[in-house]
């Protein structure tokens, strides 16, 4: 069934409803006027029209995750580790770049010691992607080896077409998921295939290509360039870029406890905070914003490449879109290449 199937809105809703029966649904939904990725109880809440401000990484790496609870009873310490996340998750409406981002998180959490909470969620998950027919102005996925209709890493790819959606089963798992609503699907005809192709071309045409390869090469000898001071001068050091980034994975582990009981939690951390590198002695190896801004860029475009042979950015542009002081990664790439 490696072919396109057409589904009318009814079929689409039936599909999501069926997924909701068998998976925990994680999808974009509107909460008080703002669209965010979240676990949805009611399939009718799923809203694909607008890209959520958050990325879907939290489905696999929750911002807050209890690892274990502990209590002191008499002379003994009782530990109760969190249960393994066995229930499968279906992420609906994940964009191709975000699926690519998960592939960047995988080596981090699956290399030894394996993080079973992450890998279990990941192995059991179904990714129903949503092609970007109108990319945001901040997007640049085509400069990073992906594209608005990229099916890589997805199980199903949905494309919005006139009168409904077209679905492509990318993997066997995706095929089985679509099988459930098989009766409501019909094979996409030539006209629909033409429309998908046209939309793909339009979306790709809308995106400017940046020379990321050259950018990465230039970083080699740009460590002391004044450009980092210029960018950092306006940075307010908040966690927006890292928290919204689909590929940032840093976390901290903290104990929240009273005198005799408590819990150990894993929480997202951000390299943009001064406390991130603050050492117990009081020394901070990255004391200024310039060090931290530079680290964020270098980590994604150099250190990650050195570690895993992959570029740690997928070009979703969220960091730029939501930065309150307009630190724009696309602009940084073009500027460094130009200099």
């Amino acid at each position: 069934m490696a072919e396109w199937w057409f589904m009318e809105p009814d079929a689409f809703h039936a599909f999501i409803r069926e997924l909701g029966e068998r998976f925990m649904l994680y999808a974009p939904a509107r909460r008080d006027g703002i669209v965010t990725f979240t676990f949805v109880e009611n399939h009718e809440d799923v809203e694909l029209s607008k890209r959520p401000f958050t990325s879907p990484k939290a489905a696999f790496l929750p911002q807050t995750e209890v690892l274990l609870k502990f209590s002191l009873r008499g002379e003994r310490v009782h530990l109760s580790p969190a249960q393994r996340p066995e229930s499968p998750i279906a992420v609906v409406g994940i964009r191709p770049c975000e699926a690519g981002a998960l592939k960047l998180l995988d080596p981090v959490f699956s290399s030894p010691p394996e993080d079973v909470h992450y890998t279990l969620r990941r192995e059991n998950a179904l990714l129903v992607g949503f092609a970007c027919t109108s990319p945001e102005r901040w997007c640049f996925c085509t400069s990073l080896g992906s594209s608005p209709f990229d099916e890589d890493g997805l199980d199903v790819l949905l494309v919005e077409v006139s009168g409904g959606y077209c679905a492509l089963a990318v993997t066997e798992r995706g095929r089985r998921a679509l099988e459930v609503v098989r009766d409501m699907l019909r094979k996409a005809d030539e006209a629909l295939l033409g429309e998908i192709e046209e939309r793909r071309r339009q979306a790709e045409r809308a995106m400017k290509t940046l020379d990321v390869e050259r950018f990465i090469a230039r970083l080699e000898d740009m460590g002391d360039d004044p450009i980092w001071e210029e960018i950092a001068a306006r940075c307010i050091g908040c966690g927006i870029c890292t928290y919204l980034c689909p590929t940032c994975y840093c976390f901290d582990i903290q104990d929240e406890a009273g005198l005799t009981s408590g819990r150990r939690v894993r929480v997202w951390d951000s390299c943009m905070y001064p406390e991130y590198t603050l050492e117990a002695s009081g020394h901070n190896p990255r004391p200024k914003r310039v060090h931290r801004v530079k680290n964020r860029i270098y980590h994604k475009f150099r250190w990650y490449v050195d570690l895993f042979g992959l570029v740690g950015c997928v070009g979703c542009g969220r960091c730029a879109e939501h930065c309150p002081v307009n630190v724009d990664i696309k602009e940084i790439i073009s500027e460094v290449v130009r200099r």
Partner: protein
Amino acid sequence: MREKYEPRIVAFLCNWCSYAAADLAGVSRLKYPPNLRVIKVMCSGRVNPLHVLYALSHGADGVVVAGCHPGDCHYRHGNYIARRRIALLRNLLSFVGLEEDRVVLTWASAAEGEKFAEMAREVADRVGKLGPLRHPIRKVETYD
């Protein structure tokens, strides 16, 4: 049989007046409900609203801040500072839908053992009537 609800109330008492008032109530064998958990501070002006918010988040159903009467502060004006702070804190709590009467500011001099006991009764009654704190600030699970 359901156990009677016993409110948990954290009481910040100033070293010079209110704590002595509590002491006097004790040595005078005055009866008052045991709901107050006393924390001695040097002055009511030392109580940071953060302490009050933290207490409410971590399990207190009510908070009392008690200091010397106006004009009698050991540090001259600590209680006046507390008065501004708590007034505004109560407004903030009310605005986010938390009953402001759970946060009480009161004055008790070292001679006012009876007044202190009466206050303790009144606060326990007031918070008891409001019931357990149900507000988003309250942690789902608190740790002993």
